[in-house]
């Protein structure tokens, strides 16, 4: 086999892995009205991990409640493979306990009167209680064996969410529903939990619906993403493409990360502790990660974390000084929003009006974007 063929076949395997187990399709076609809000969905989930991305009030929680069966839609149908979970025309509305959808809540909702072990056992199918190999695997992957005898209030936030995920997995669900499972954690904890979610994705043959307002989580986990706004799907597609496209900018700004760049690894040097990413003919230096050369690494940079300079050779410690040209200037409230093109990549930069005047920034002007390595968030683990 040639190297090219080998690369090809591994690529195909990776693709297969992203497609849902047994090719199960989940079709959502229903409407639900709650006061003045209406959720109106018509989509099919075919990938292993699907992210629904939207701001609060966009209908994410309503979607999950309808899917899990704790809330009945007004009309339409929900099908999991061949199985109808809900069909208004046929009068079908399967109760939540029959659906076997493992639900991981933002707040965890562990049972406070039960130990971690009892919480995890709660949803386990009865006939499995004596052969808990799968549970052992769950405990192993989420690293909670040491927590089993504790009560939920004795757990840290991150431990609580891991237990919540374990509880949902231990029931051997047909599907995992995750409702902002990281939203209640601080960013450092988030970055520690995301690898666990990756392990879960790889180790269990369960489709996952991941609902979040954080682009970084959707990028890090999902095979497909839907943008949800006011109860309607406004865009869908492969997350990196969808979320790095200029059309995703409003969502990016909504969720507080304006710049999402997917950049290939140029060099990774463990001894120097740095990895360099290619941005055109220039390089973006980030703390070392073990990634192969050429692998695309999604990164997120907040617009206010970029400093604009008119000169490249500054006596400063920041490692990243990228040359670009101003494409647009916009006054947004108290700040000026610059759109800077760096060899085809667009960077949004937020500066004060004062800085804009002092530097006499104009459209078409050549500038340097100074970025601290720490300000570059990796959306990959």
């Amino acid at each position, binding site marked *: 086999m040639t190297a090219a063929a080998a690369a090809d076949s591994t690529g195909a395997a990776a693709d297969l892995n992203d497609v849902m187990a047994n090719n199960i399709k989940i079709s959502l076609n229903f409407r639900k009205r709650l006061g003045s809000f209406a959720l109106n969905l018509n989509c099919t989930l075919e990938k292993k991990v699907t992210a629904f991305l939207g701001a609060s009030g966009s209908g994410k929680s309503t979607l999950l409640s309808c899917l*899990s*069966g*704790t809330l009945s839609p007004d009309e339409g149908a929900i099908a999991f493979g061949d199985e109808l979970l809900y069909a208004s025309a046929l009068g079908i509305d399967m*109760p*939540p*306990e029959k*659906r*076997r*959808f*493992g*639900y991981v*809540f933002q*707040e965890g*909702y562990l*049972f*406070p*009167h039960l130990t971690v072990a009892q919480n995890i056992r*709660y*949803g386990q*199918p009865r006939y499995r209680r004596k052969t808990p190999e799968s549970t052992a695997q769950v405990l192993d992957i989420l690293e909670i064996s040491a927590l089993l005898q504790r009560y939920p209030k004795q757990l840290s936030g991150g431990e609580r969410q891991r237990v919540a995920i374990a*509880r*949902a997995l231990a*029931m051997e669900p047909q599907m995992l*529903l995750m409702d902002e499972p990281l939203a209640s954690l601080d960013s450092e904890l988030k970055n520690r939990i995301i690898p666990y979610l990756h392990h879960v994705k790889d180790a269990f043959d369960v489709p996952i619906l991941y609902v979040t307002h954080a682009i970084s989580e959707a990028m890090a986990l999902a095979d497909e993403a839907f943008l949800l706004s006011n109860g309607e799907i406004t865009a869908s597609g492969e997350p990196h493409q969808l979320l790095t496209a200029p059309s995703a900018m409003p969502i990016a700004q909504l969720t507080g990360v304006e710049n999402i760049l997917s950049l290939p690894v140029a060099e990774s040097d463990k001894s120097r502790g740095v990895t360099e990413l290619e941005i055109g003919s220039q390089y973006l230096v980030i703390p070392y990660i073990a990634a192969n050369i050429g692998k695309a690494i999604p990164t997120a940079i907040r617009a206010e974390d970029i400093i604009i300079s008119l000169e490249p050779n500054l006596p400063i410690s920041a490692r990243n000084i990228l040359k670009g040209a101003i494409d647009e200037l916009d006054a947004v409230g108290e700040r000026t929003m610059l759109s800077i093109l760096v060899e085809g990549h667009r960077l949004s930069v937020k500066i004060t009006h004062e800085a804009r005047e002092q530097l006499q920034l104009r459209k078409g002007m050549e500038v340097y974007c100074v970025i601290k390595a720490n300000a570059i968030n990796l959306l990959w683990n």
Partner: protein
Amino acid sequence: MRITAAEVTALTLSIKVALLSLIVMFPPGLLVGWLLAKRAFPGKALLNTLVMLPLVLPPVVSGYLLLILLSKHGLIGAFLFQVFGIEFVFSPFAVVIAISVISFPLLVRGIVAGMETVPAALENAARTLGASPAKVFFTVTLPLAYRGIIGGAILGFSKSLGEFGATIMVAGNIPGKTQTMALAIFSAVQLGEDASVYRLVLISTVVAFVALWLTERFTLR
């Protein structure tokens, strides 16, 4: 201080009927409490009003209404008498019925208060984990509402121990048969038996104190 046999009889009768009432009313109390705390249905306000009515009605009025219903010529009493040949009024069972009606609102209030502290989200979580509504009730709602439930039970029991107005209307004041502590005190006062009054009042106070204290111990965190 020597307690007379009659006083002991009144005390044990009080405790027996109060316990029996609690045992009989506890399951329907749980059901009604659960309905009021966790369910939305037409007529909920009406059910709540009916259950709570004895709390605001003068006990004598409740007792009189029960008397009408249960007497040989009453709606329920006539049926029982004709079909089974039993007559409830002026029997220990009448005492149980009277104190049950009067204490039921307190029992239910405690249960509702307890169940309302259990977040619906937690119960929904249990449903998604495969639990039927019945399993959710017994494994999540009940254990988490236990403080309120025990509080309601002890409060209802205490109320039953001291009930007077409804009891005397339906059950009369028959020593050894329907004369509870409260009725015995009433009789002793009427007959001017001061020593007996003091003893009974002391016992009643101690029993009430212990009951309330137990409630507090169970319900305070």
